[in-house]
């Protein structure tokens, strides 16, 4: 039962990442990220239940509250303020991107096979999924031109990392986790501010235009 839930959520997260790759509308992408974070939260809770580790609930709460609710809300606000709603043509078209992501997924799973077997019943899937997500997130950062999408990609990477944390550790020490979360909030805020600055300076969120500094 637990197993199925975990695999389901993990798979769901990976799917959401894939969808992000295929997606152009910013708002939808944000929503996808939100969903992804919810799934992450569920993973946390399930694990907490499974091997009775209460502090994972806090993790879950943080995840859902922060990444599931606050950040999406904030980013949507940003998008509305800026009034730019669609991603422009990325460096790589959608089919090619999807193919690349498949390849990256393979790499992720390949590596995950190296982890110690049996420490976690679900380790392999979860780690495979999360490594793949990590790489896909990176890939998004590399190929997308809008500042917001890059932020989302970064956050996807963040999610992937948390998923790994859940998958292979019995959860990080709480204090440290709080620290991580706190930093992520700050980071997102700062990123938001930067987006505003970029927009009111360049009348666009297209960061591929930020290429004056060469050599």
């Amino acid at each position, binding site marked *: 039962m637990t197993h199925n839930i975990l695999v389901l959520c993990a798979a769901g997260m990976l799917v959401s990442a894939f969808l992000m790759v295929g997606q152009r509308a910013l708002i939808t992408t944000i929503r996808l990220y939100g969903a992804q974070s919810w799934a992450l939260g569920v993973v946390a809770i399930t694990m907490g239940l499974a091997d009775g580790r209460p502090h994972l609930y806090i993790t879950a709460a943080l995840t859902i509250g922060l990444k599931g609710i606050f950040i999406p809300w904030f980013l949507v606000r940003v998008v509305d303020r800026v009034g730019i709603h669609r991603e422009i043509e990325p460096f790589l078209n959608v089919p090619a991107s999807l193919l690349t992501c498949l390849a*990256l997924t393979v790499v*992720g799973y390949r*590596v995950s096979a*190296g982890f110690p077997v049996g420490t976690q019943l679900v380790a392999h899937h979860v780690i495979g999924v999360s490594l793949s997500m990590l790489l896909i997130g990176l890939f998004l*950062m*590399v190929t997308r031109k809008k500042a917001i999408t890059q932020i989302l990609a970064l956050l996807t990477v963040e999610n992937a990392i948390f998923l790994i944390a859940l998958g292979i550790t019995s959860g990080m020490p709480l204090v440290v986790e709080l620290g991580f979360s706190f930093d992520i909030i700050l980071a997102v805020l700062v990123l938001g501010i930067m987006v505003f600055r970029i927009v009111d300076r360049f009348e666009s969120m297209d960061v*591929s235009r930020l290429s004056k500094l*060469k*050599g």
Partner: protein
Amino acid sequence: MLLSAALIAHVVAIVIAVALVRRPAACRIATFGGAAFASALIIASAVQALASGGVDHRVLATHAATGFGLSLTIDGLAAWFLLIQGAVALPVAIYSIPYMRHAVPPARTPVVGIAFNVLLASVTLVLVSGEVVGFVFAWEVMSLATTALVASEHEHPANRRAAYLYLAMSHVGTGCVIAAFLTLASGAGSLAFSDMLTGHVVTGSTRTAVFVLFAVGFGVKAGLLPVHVWLPEAHPAAPSSISAFMSGVLVKTGIYGIVRFGVVGLGVPDPSWGLAFLLLGSLTAILGVLYALAQQDLKRLLAYSTIENAGIIVIGLGAAMMASSAGRPDLAAFGLTASLLHALNHAVFKGLLFLSAGSVVMATGSRDIESFGGLLRRMPWTGACFLVGALAISGIPPLNGFTSEWLTFQSLLLNFSSVPGLVRLNFPVGAALLALTSALAAACYVKAFGATFLAQPRSTAATQAHDAPWCMVMPQAALALACVGLGLFPGPALGALHRVVGALPGVAGASPVGAGAFTMTAGSPAIDVVRPLIVGLALLGALAVARALTWRGRSPVRRTATWGCGGALSAEAEYTGTAFSKPLIMIFGAVYRPTREVAALAHGSPYFPHAVRYRARIEPTFERFLYAPLTRTVLWLAERMKVLQAGSLHAYLAYILALGVGLLIWLGGTR
């Protein structure tokens, strides 16, 4: 002890200079006076060391943080080069006291003075340093100080270019030297030369590689082909007295390095090394003198002839190496003696020539030979000194240039018996090439002396020239006397060298040169004996006879105008330096690949030109076919690589992604 005193004197001079930085005149006297004093001490210490013949070793300083030591080891070789340094630096320093007033802007005097003292001190340290880091330290400081002096008039782009060229090339050289040193050191497990230079630290191809690195690294300083190109740029750029020091001493530090580390430091040389040096030396000598012959800039001419003499020195070294690889330490000792003596002689007469050139440049404000002429009457002393130098550098007896070239000839011809087979033909041919070199040098200096000092002035500046103050003439006179003295009485120098060379590893115990007070014999059995003094006396006698034949008692000599084919003969009609060297340039056209432009300037009809402008240029072969492509290639590559930083954030992220994925795949493999 004396040496430390000299170093302290330099430091004191520098401190005073810093204190007097606002008063150029005082600063000039302090720095160069201090340098002169220090140089005197250096000479004293060198003589002392040569006389005692022992090896003085002590640690001067230790770098607290790293524990790298700066230790002094004054053995014979070091002492010999210290002697060279002092012999040039002393007159140069005295000469500079008045000279620098004209040579550099007052505000810059302190910098030049300080740099000069730093240069002298660092050269001393290079010569006596007993372990790697101290040596490299001094070596680098030496380069930096020289660069500062070359760039002392950095307003002229040519000087900036020269300074940078020198800096870059010598740094590349230093790189090679460091690599060679550390390879040796890691073999020996110690940074002390005493452990590294035992001769069997590295073997096989590594050993050859180390030798090549030394040859290139020190060859840059020594001005060997093809890494000589900095030399003719840097010497004219620097103030003349500095050029004198550079040409006389700085270049010799390269020779010092080659001798100590390359020739005797690596054990019995591989036969190929000696042969390579023989060829390299001959090539350097001939091309050097040929280029010298083609110059119109007096200081460039002298610079190129420095390259020539470096070549002659290396010929001797090549002969020495071939001898010792053929198992003839005695002959090896002999080639070394020839080279080392020529190093001293060249330092003396080239220093002299540069100082005289400096006086001429100061008097006329130009370096262009064609704008001189008739200076012998206006600056008799400088002219006479220059003539002595010119005769000496042309290898004419009984002056000192002849003695060392004679020794070089001997070392070549004696080697003829040492190696069997076809290889030995290299020796007489090399000797013939050496003869060609010195004959060309004679032509070159007839041109230099004649075009500069003889006939009538070809410019108003030359017409109004005056001789330099005695404080600038005296040093030249001293050096000129040294040329004569070393020529007539080679004995003492040879005696000292006998001990110096005898103490070197690989030639130890060999008794190279039987030296009486004024006799030179070569090898056993000797194939030749020379007593320059007799030659001198014979010449004197014959001169007396000749003078007697033309003696007219009181009756005055009738003076008339030179016959000018009917017209009045003006300075324009004189044979210029360019014209003088023209035949040789055409004969050796394959080397020069000359180009000429003739333009007839006419007001009205082109058939009645009022002036004809003629310009001849020779191909700067190495600059054009070696260095220009090199630079182009490097910059092209750099240009290509700049796409790495083309400003696209996505690319930057992609690098990280690629690195990450790459490492993941790699790790996925390892488990």
